[in-house]
């Protein structure tokens, strides 16, 4: 079992509690993320509307239940995050293994593409592409995935470079194993655990990225809620009803910090997060 310090335990438990809420809330009797109520606009936390409906976490300008919207937004974010992480994991591992195993011009081309992608700020690339293809949940997952393969690719390539010279790979090769066999049977299983660590870190990054796009109005589109969009809606009522912007922010914080601590607990040390680094 991993060793966790107190802070890690706290954040990870908070994350677990929030995920439990996200799953349970849709089954509660008051669950209604879309229903508007003119008698219950901007109800504070724990307040009730004029027609007597209770809002546990208050309501927004249109009288929609914030708790329900937070839960649904969390599900949407998680779904997009999982989709994007799967896409980037598959693309990144594949390109990284191929680059590391075959070396030569193929490697130069793949790593060149990685460098190029890092030289355009990711938010800008996403804004440009999502402005052009139009944002939808599936597009978002795909776009976020295709723009975040670089971390996986770099780590996978780095590991492959040393793995391919190890005896078990060399011996397989002398016995006539094909490249595809070697990559699938010998390299992939050795690289995968590291990749999952990168994924746990990247998941948080993708949630932030999706929230930022949604905040800018370029991510999840209404009527579907998203934490980023809810913050943006709350910005106009900051003085009047600060909980509109604060509650989704807290949800984002718990999600991102929880994932961050979790991935840090997985890695004892060393930078496998693929933070922007230059290949020489």
């Amino acid at each position: 079992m991993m060793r966790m310090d107190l802070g890690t335990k706290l954040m990870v438990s908070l994350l677990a509690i929030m995920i439990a809420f996200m799953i349970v809330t849709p089954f509660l009797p008051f669950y209604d993320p879309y229903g508007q109520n003119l008698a219950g606009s901007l109800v504070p936390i724990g307040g009730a509307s004029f027609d007597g409906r209770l809002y546990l976490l208050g309501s927004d300008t249109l009288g929609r239940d914030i708790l329900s919207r937070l839960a649904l937004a969390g599900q949407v974010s998680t779904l997009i995050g999982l989709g994007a992480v799967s896409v980037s994991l598959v693309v990144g591992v594949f390109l990284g293994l191929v680059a590391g195993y075959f070396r030569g011009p193929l490697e130069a081309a793949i790593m060149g593409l990685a460098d190029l992608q890092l030289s355009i700020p990711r938010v800008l690339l996403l804004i440009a592409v999502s402005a052009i293809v139009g944002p939808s949940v599936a597009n978002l997952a795909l776009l976020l995935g295709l723009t975040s393969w670089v971390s996986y690719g770099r780590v996978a390539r780095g590991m492959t470079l040393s793995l391919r010279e190890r005896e078990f790979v060399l011996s397989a090769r002398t016995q006539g194993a094909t490249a595809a066999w070697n990559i699938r049977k010998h390299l992939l299983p050795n690289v995968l655990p590291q990749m999952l660590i990168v994924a746990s870190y990247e998941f948080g990054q993708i949630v932030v990225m999706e929230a930022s796009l949604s905040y800018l109005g370029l991510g999840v589109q209404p009527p579907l809620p998203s934490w980023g969009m809810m913050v943006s809606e709350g910005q106009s009522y900051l003085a009047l009803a600060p909980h509109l912007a604060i509650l989704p922010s807290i949800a984002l914080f718990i999600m991102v910090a929880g994932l961050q601590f979790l991935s840090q607990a997985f890695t004892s040390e060393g930078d496998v997060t693929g933070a922007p680094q230059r290949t020489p």
Partner: protein
Amino acid sequence: MLNLFLKRITQSVMTVLGVVTAAFFLVRLAGDPAVLNLSAEATAEDIERVRTALGLNRPLLVQYLDFMWRALHGDFGVSLRQNIPAMDLVVERIPATLELALTSFAVGIGLAFVLGVAMRMTPSRTLRQVIMWIALGRQAIPIFSFGLLMILIFSVWLRWLPSLGRGTWAHLVLPALTLGTYELALYLRLINASLASEQRQDYVRTAYAKGQGHIKVLLKHMLPNALLPLVTVAGINLGLLLGGTVVTETVFSWPGVGRLIVESVSQRDFPVIISGVFLISLMFVVINLIVDILYGFLDPRVRAA
């Protein structure tokens, strides 16, 4: 040294060409520029005429080379909304974005410097942990949430600072604090690690042996060496910073390139979007090049590589 220069400059040129190529495909993805330039009532004949006028009936390769040529002159077409060259609109906004980015950069490095030294000098383990916790916590709050928190505290409740716009230094405080602290945890960890590794160097032992005090050794001997990697990483992370300006500018209504891009997206003004993205990427590439070359000057060991 010259070798390093040439290699890095070639790399940068390749990157810029790559960005232009990406921009070309993005423009294609956006749809037929002839259709985008016309109103919805245009006939097929009108579209054909505009296609000829814009040179869209030429072979793709010719169009690509033409696009490249224009791009190298900063010409990404005319704004679909305002009918002036898109690049002019973007260039107008550059000073505001640079002001924000450079101030945030300075705030980030400055805070990391001060807190890093404080963490090194304090004997209190708790204080060190608290500083690190705050930096890590800050990192887990997205820029827009943190920005709104700043507005809520300093503009709405305390009424100390303006919440939006650009003008006086007071307008700059909240945006720079929001953007500059985002990477603080990374910088702090970095400066701690490099201070720890400098601690083991011979020159530090020599300095102590000469009888110099702890503070003097730290500030005069170790810090200049420890700051070098910090500046490099910060330079590389400038991409994150420049990307962060987009969100920060939107939160604080800061009239920079990022906000222009976001506004242009809602107006579907593609030439402006592409010009903005290209220019920010170009800034990023150039600044990185400068940082790398400076690094070669500052650290003789790099030149040999």
